[in-house]
């Protein structure tokens, strides 16, 4: 009997075009044995949530460097709730001021990683916090 493999959606919401970080995370997740659905740049919150549902991912990991995190991240979580997918964990990384993090967590974003975090730390967080859907 096979086991669940962790599936993660990695994407970039909004308008900034810097995807180096997202690609490095996708690669680190691949090397950790996860299946990564990479949706690329300029995704709307609706597209991200629909893709996450169709792909049955355990985790959505979004990279944001535009400064629009306080708008986009809670919007993704809200749409997840509307579509009955609030159980999918939402995580973010990028240039996000420390002061904004408590508010994001209150809005349902499980964790926020800021520049300088090692990929090991992020993979470790996923292993500790994500249990694949039964």
């Amino acid at each position: 009997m096979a086991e669940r493999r962790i599936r993660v959606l990695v994407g970039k919401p909004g308008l900034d075009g810097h995807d180096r970080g997202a690609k490095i995370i996708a690669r680190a997740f691949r090397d950790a044995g996860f299946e990564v659905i990479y949706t690329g740049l300029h995704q709307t919150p609706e597209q991200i949530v629909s893709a996450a549902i169709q792909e049955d991912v355990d985790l959505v990991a979004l990279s944001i460097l535009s400064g629009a995190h306080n708008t986009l991240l809670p919007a993704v979580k809200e749409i997840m709730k509307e579509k009955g997918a609030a159980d999918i964990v939402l995580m973010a990384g990028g240039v996000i001021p420390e002061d904004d993090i408590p508010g994001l967590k209150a809005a349902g974003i499980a964790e926020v990683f800021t520049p300088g975090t090692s990929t090991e730390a992020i993979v470790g967080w996923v292993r500790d916090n994500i249990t694949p859907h039964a």
Partner: protein
Amino acid sequence: MTLAERVLDGDIRAAARLMRDIDDRFKSAIEELKTLYPHTGNAYIIGITGPPGAGKSTLVDQIVAAYRKKDLLVGVIAIDPTSPFSGGAILGDRIRMNRHADDAGVFIRSLATRGALGGLSRSTTDVVNVMDAMGMDVIVIETVGVGQDEVDIVSTAHTTVVVMVPGLGDDIQAIKAGILEIGDVFVVNKADRDGAERTARELTTMLEMKHPDPAGWAPRVLLTEGARGVGIEELVQEFDAHHIYLKESGALQRLIEERNAKLFADSLREELFETVFGAIKGNGKYDEIVAGMRDKSIDPYSAVQEVMAGRAFS
């Protein structure tokens, strides 16, 4: 309600979960597939194959858009390779087609090969069946980027499309065996590039050598530019023509029967192996055989015969 009942009821999350259960080889998925099976057989299945970077995902994106204009429901299965080292995968086909993600008439699923070598994942046929039962009119399967010999798509799709690009090799490449023999439709994508006409000519020459039967389907070579949507209308017309040919010639029924037979044989092979292997691992016979081969008291061929003799199938 069971997952299958929810799928038939139009529940997207249930469908997505069932596809995962299939991919993760949960025993429960078999029960769900049993329920869905009577509801399959309505979708038209298109397989898109070709080398990495030929533009398959971009073409799929355009094909989806074309069928959506006709108001048809479209399922997409996009396959990318699993890392042989970590078991992980980056499934990136969605990058080219995610504009359809929030269209309720489109369902896209990315699958990793998980060690399968024929260009598809082991789960592909069953995931097709789930999409079929969901009521998708058209299902497009994009294989992993293939080389010369990954031809599983033929036994899964009704229409197989081989996508090539200019500049991949001389005309000897075109007369070798393998993926160039399996196309019902050939596409030279990135047709704005130098050499596209020549590649198309070489493929046409190869095809003319192979198809003397005037009553049969004669595959044609079409030129497209996926990124700009050039040639897509003609491509979809060609799919329609092939679909009609399949229905009128009786070839569709043959394809369906071959596919059913293959699905049965594959399932039987797996079930038999799992049952027998599980039994000999459980009762110590397996360890005995491994030890026996180590000291050469038994060879692997006799060991298999011995195991098989222990069970009566006749």
